[in-house]
C-alpha cells in the first residue's frame, strides 16, 4: 500500500499564495502583534460579557413589548414588598406569585425561550441516536479506553494538537468567508508558528502565553449561520451524530477543506480519521456519560445541547464581528 497525497488543485495553490502573502505581513510584525493580540484577547473577552449583557437587556425590552401582561402584574405584586421597582425585573424566591415575571427575566438571558429546533423526523432521529449510543458504548469507548492505557496523556494531547493544526484550512477559509480578518490573520500566524516551531503542529506554541494566538472558533456551519441561513430541522446522522441541514452542508464543505480527506487510497483517509476520533475520545471519556447520566430524556437533552451550542457559537461570533464600534464605550462600564 502506498500512501500519497493527490496532486493539489489550482485552488490549493491560490490558497497557499494567499497564506504566504498574509503571513508575509503578519510574521515580521510578530513582536508587535503580541501586544496587539493580548489587547484583542482581553477586549474580546470583555466583549462577550458585555454583549451578553446587551443581549439580555435588548431582549428584555422585546419581552416587555411583546408580553405586556407579566410586567404590570409583577410590579403590582412587588410594590407591597420592600423590594425596589428594579427588583420586579429580577424575581427573588420570595415573589412566588410573580411566576410570569420569572419566565420573562429568565428567558431574556436565553434570547426568548432559548434556541429551539423543529424535529419532524423524530422517530428516525431517535433510532439513529440509539445506534450512535450503542456505537459509543460498545465500540468507541472500549477502544479509546484501551488506547488510553497504552499512550500517556502528553502524547495524546500532542496528537490532538497535530490534527487541530492540520484542520487549519477549515478555520482559515471559514474566518475569511465570515470577513473576520483578524481571525484569519491569527489562524495563519498560528499555523505557521505551530507547523514550523511546533514540530508539525504537535506542540501548540501559538496558544501559549507570550504568543497568544488562540485557535479561532470558526467552521462552515457557523459561517452559513452568520450569513443568515436558518438551521432547518434536527437530524441525527449515524456515526456523525447531531446535525441540521445547515451544519450538514458545512460538514461536506469541511470534508474538502480537510487535508486528510485527500489521502489515497480512501481507506487510508478513513483510517486516519477514525484514529483521530479515537484519540479525541480518549481525552474526553466521561463527558458523554455525564451528559446522558444527568438527563431525564437523553435524546432531548442532547438535541437541546446541540442547538444551544451551535446557536451560541454563531451569536458569539456575531458579537465579536459586529459590535466593534461600540465595544470600547461598554468595556468601561
Amino acid at each position, binding site marked *: 500500500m502506498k500512501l500519497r497525497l493527490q496532486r493539489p488543485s489550482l485552488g490549493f495553490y491560490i490558497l497557499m499564495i494567499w497564506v504566504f502573502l498574509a503571513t508575509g505581513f503578519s510574521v515580521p510584525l510578530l513582536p*508587535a502583534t503580541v*501586544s496587539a493580540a*493580548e*489587547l484583542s484577547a*482581553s477586549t474580546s*473577552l*470583555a466583549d*462577550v*460579557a*458585555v454583549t*451578553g*449583557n446587551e443581549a*439580555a437587556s435588548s431582549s428584555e425590552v422585546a419581552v416587555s413589548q411583546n408580553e405586556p401582561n407579566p410586567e404590570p402584574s409583577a410590579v403590582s405584586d412587588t410594590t407591597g414588598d420592600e423590594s425596589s421597582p*428594579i*427588583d420586579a*425585573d*429580577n424575581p*427573588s*424566591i420570595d415573589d412566588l406569585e410573580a*411566576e410570569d415575571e*420569572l*419566565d420573562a*427575566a*429568565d428567558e431574556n*438571558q*436565553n434570547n426568548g425561550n*432559548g434556541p*429551539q429546533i423543529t424535529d419532524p423526523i423524530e422517530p428516525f432521529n431517535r433510532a439513529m441516536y440509539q445506534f450512535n449510543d450503542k456505537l459509543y458504548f460498545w465500540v468507541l469507548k472500549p477502544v479509546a479506553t484501551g488506547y488510553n492505557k497504552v499512550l500517556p*496523556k502528553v502524547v*495524546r*494531547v500532542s496528537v*490532538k494538537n497535530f490534527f487541530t493544526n492540520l484542520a487549519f484550512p477549515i478555520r482559515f477559509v471559514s474566518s475569511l468567508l465570515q470577513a473576520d480578518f483578524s481571525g484569519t490573520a491569527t489562524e495563519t500566524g498560528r499555523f505557521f508558528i505551530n507547523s514550523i516551531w511546533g514540530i508539525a503542529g504537535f506542540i501548540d506554541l501559538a496558544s501559549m502565553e507570550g504568543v497568544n494566538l488562540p485557535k479561532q472558533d470558526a467552521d462552515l456551519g457557523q459561517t452559513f449561520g452568520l450569513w443568515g441561513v436558518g438551521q432547518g430541522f434536527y437530524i441525527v446522522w449515524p456515526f456523525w451524530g447531531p446535525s441540521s441541514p445547515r451544519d450538514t452542508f458545512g460538514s461536506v464543505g469541511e470534508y474538502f477543506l480537510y487535508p486528510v480527506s485527500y489521502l489515497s487510497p480512501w481507506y487510508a483517509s478513513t483510517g486516519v480519521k477514525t484514529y483521530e476520533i479515537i484519540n*479525541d475520545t480518549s*481525552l*474526553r471519556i*466521561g*463527558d458523554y456519560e*455525564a451528559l446522558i*447520566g*444527568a*438527563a*431525564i*430524556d437523553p435524546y*432531548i*437533552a442532547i*438535541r*437541546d*445541547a446541540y442547538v*444551544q*451550542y451551535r*446557536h*451560541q*457559537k454563531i451569536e*458569539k461570533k456575531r458579537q465579536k464581528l459586529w459590535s466593534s464600534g461600540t465595544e470600547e464605550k461598554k468595556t468601561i462600564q
Partner: protein
Amino acid sequence: MKKNIVLSILLSVILLCAPAYAGIPLETVKINVNKVLEVLRDPALKSPAKQDIKKEKLRQLYFDMFDELELAKRSLSRNWKKLNAVQQNEFIHLFHQILENTYAERILSYQNEKISFDKESMLTPTQAEVYTRINRPAGEVPINYRLILVNGNWKVYDVVIENVSLVQNYRTQFNDILSKQTPDKLLEILRKKVKTQK
C-alpha cells in the same frame, strides 16, 4: 514607537487595576470553587474509605453555593405552577438527587486542571454571570455561573458549560415531558431515574 509605549503602559495599568474591581459575584464563585478544590486535594481524604466524608463535605458546599429553589423553578419555568406545594418539594429533592448522583463522580475525578476566573458581568442589578475556564487535556472548557442576589447572598442558579445552559437544557426536557404527561407522572419518572442511578 512612542505610541506603543504609552499604549503598553496604559494597558498594564488597566490590567493591574482589574483585580481591584472584581465584584462580589466573582469573588463568591472563586471562594466557593476554591473550597471545593481544597476538599478534593485534602490528603487526609485521599483514601477510598473517606469518599463518603468527602461527598458530605461537597454536599454542604453545594448548599452554600447554589440556590436549589431557584434552580428547580427555572428548570420548570411555566410548569412550576402546575405542581402543588408537596409536589414542588419532592421535585426539588429529586432534582437535587439526580444532579448529585451524576456530578459528584465527575467532580471527584478532578485531576488538578487549572481553573481561571476571568470576569463577571451584571445581567441585571441582582443577577450576574461569572466567567471561568477549566483547562482540560481535551481543550479549554468555558464554564459560566449565573448568580442571583437572594437575601444579601449571591447564589448560583444556572451553570453554562461550553455554551450549554444546564437550566435551559432541563427546561426543554421538562417541557417536552409535561406537554404530554401530568406532574405526577414527571415525579414518577424522576423517582425511577434516581433509583437507576444508584
